[in-house]
């Protein structure tokens, strides 16, 4: 469903992605992990077309991403820090997005998210005045309400209270059972272990390890994912000092 071949990205002299090749198939939660600055967000933004790759190829649903925008109708994206237009009320933001995007918009999902996130009382308020957690809820709402085939969630549960965070995780599992693809990043390993099927570990702009959660744990010889990933990262830190 998402095919990445030899992806490179340079910001000025700074090379963030150094030849990433990946193949992601539907019906799975794929967690992209790695230390800070390893290129997780850049990778996701490249697939979305927010960042233009230096070289390499990205194919989403059989369509090359380069100079195209139509493929984004399959995609829902929750950015790391939710940003919204100034001066728009929540109601206006939602109706504007529905008006612009339309395709596969599902009012049922919208209602469910508004109910569960208790967003009713915010409908007539300006989005820029919301707290971080509420903005995150809005971001999840506008991502899920278009019922996309592929989700890119950049640290989706950050700032959410336990009730909302559990609801979102349930939703993610549900979507995957409907044969969707969910790609997420997170720094909470317990969460990754709970919902992810597959792990892609990025190190210095390259895919260091790709495999199922149990495989990664087994390979490292540690007892849980957190320790397994910590061990992988330690290697890098030691590598830098040596």
């Amino acid at each position, binding site marked *: 469903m998402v095919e990445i071949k030899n992806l490179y990205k340079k*910001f000025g002299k700074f090379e963030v992605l150094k030849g990433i090749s990946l193949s992601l198939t539907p019906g799975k939660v794929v967690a992209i992990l790695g230390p800070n600055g390893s290129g997780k967000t850049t990778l996701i*933004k490249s697939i*979305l*077309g*927010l*960042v*233009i790759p230096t070289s390499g190829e990205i194919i989403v649903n059989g369509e090359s991403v380069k100079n195209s*925008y*139509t*493929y*984004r*109708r399959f*995609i829902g*994206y929750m*950015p790391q820090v939710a*940003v*919204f*237009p*100034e*001066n728009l009320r929540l109601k206006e933001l939602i109706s*504007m*997005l529905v*008006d*612009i*995007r339309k*395709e596969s918009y599902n009012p049922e999902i919208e209602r469910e998210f508004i109910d569960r996130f208790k967003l009713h009382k915010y409908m007539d308020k300006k989005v820029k005045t919301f707290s971080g957690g509420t903005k995150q809820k809005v971001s999840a709402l506008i991502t899920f309400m278009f019922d996309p085939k592929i989700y890119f969630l950049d640290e989706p549960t950050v700032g959410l209270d336990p009730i909302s965070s559990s609801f979102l995780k349930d939703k993610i599992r549900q979507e995957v059972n409907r044969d969707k693809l969910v790609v997420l990043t997170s720094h909470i390993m317990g969460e990754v272990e709970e919902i992810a099927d597959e792990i892609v570990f990025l190190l210095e702009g390259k895919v260091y390890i790709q495999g199922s959660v149990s495989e990664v744990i087994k390979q490292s010889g540690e007892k849980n994912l957190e320790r397994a990933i910590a061990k992988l990262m330690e290697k890098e830190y030691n590598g830098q000092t040596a």
Partner: protein
Amino acid sequence: MGKLLKYEFYNMFRNKWIIFYFLFFLLLTSTLFYFSKEPAKVAATLLQMVILVIPLVSLILGTIFMYDSRNFIELLLSQPIDRRSIYIAKYTATSLSLGLAFVLGVFIPYILFLTGVEGSKEYFLFFSLLVSGLFITFIFIAFAFLIAVIFEEKVKGFGASLLLWLYMTLIYDGIILFITIYFRDYPLEKPVLILSILNPVDIARIFVILQLDISALLGYTGVLFKQFFDTIMGKVISLGVMVVWTFIPLMAGLWQFRKKDF
């Protein structure tokens, strides 16, 4: 694209800067007409505004709007929308709103005071003034957007805007003046004519001044200018140059925008 335009216009009309800008021209033109009953004199004063204020306001507001809508742009970019549509919709809404504020701000008092005017009503003069003002708006909004796309930081963007304004409105004329004095022994009419065409502010100024009687004040080059611009050919060329001056920064900005990382 149509929907994007709708939301961009909706945004612009809720913007208080546009209202201020409209009121500024409304008040200014009304005051000028109140003190002088001659449309030609009013147009001469307004011309100075067109040349100095419109480029400055277009550059500053253009960069502010572009930087402020970065969040909106990022949100749109993650939807199935073409980058080109986002940029063109934003440019169209911004330049038309500012242009309309200027045109209405001048046109409403002009129409209202016209009944009290004795003698020439100067229709063509005001028409030229409005056309020049509109083009100056289009040109400098395009430059403002280009600058805002190139410079990631707001402060640098404003700096670049101010420098461009200084260059186009003051420094460039200084250079022309320097050339005319330094090379005064040579026939300069044609080079100066060409140099003037290379600056959008100058061409807008000449376009209006030649409708005024005071164009004789332009001196010996003025004769050539008058000969050139008074023909249909001259008017078409100067309009054409203003169109080209709109498209150069607009296309450069669009090109930059399409390869920008967010």
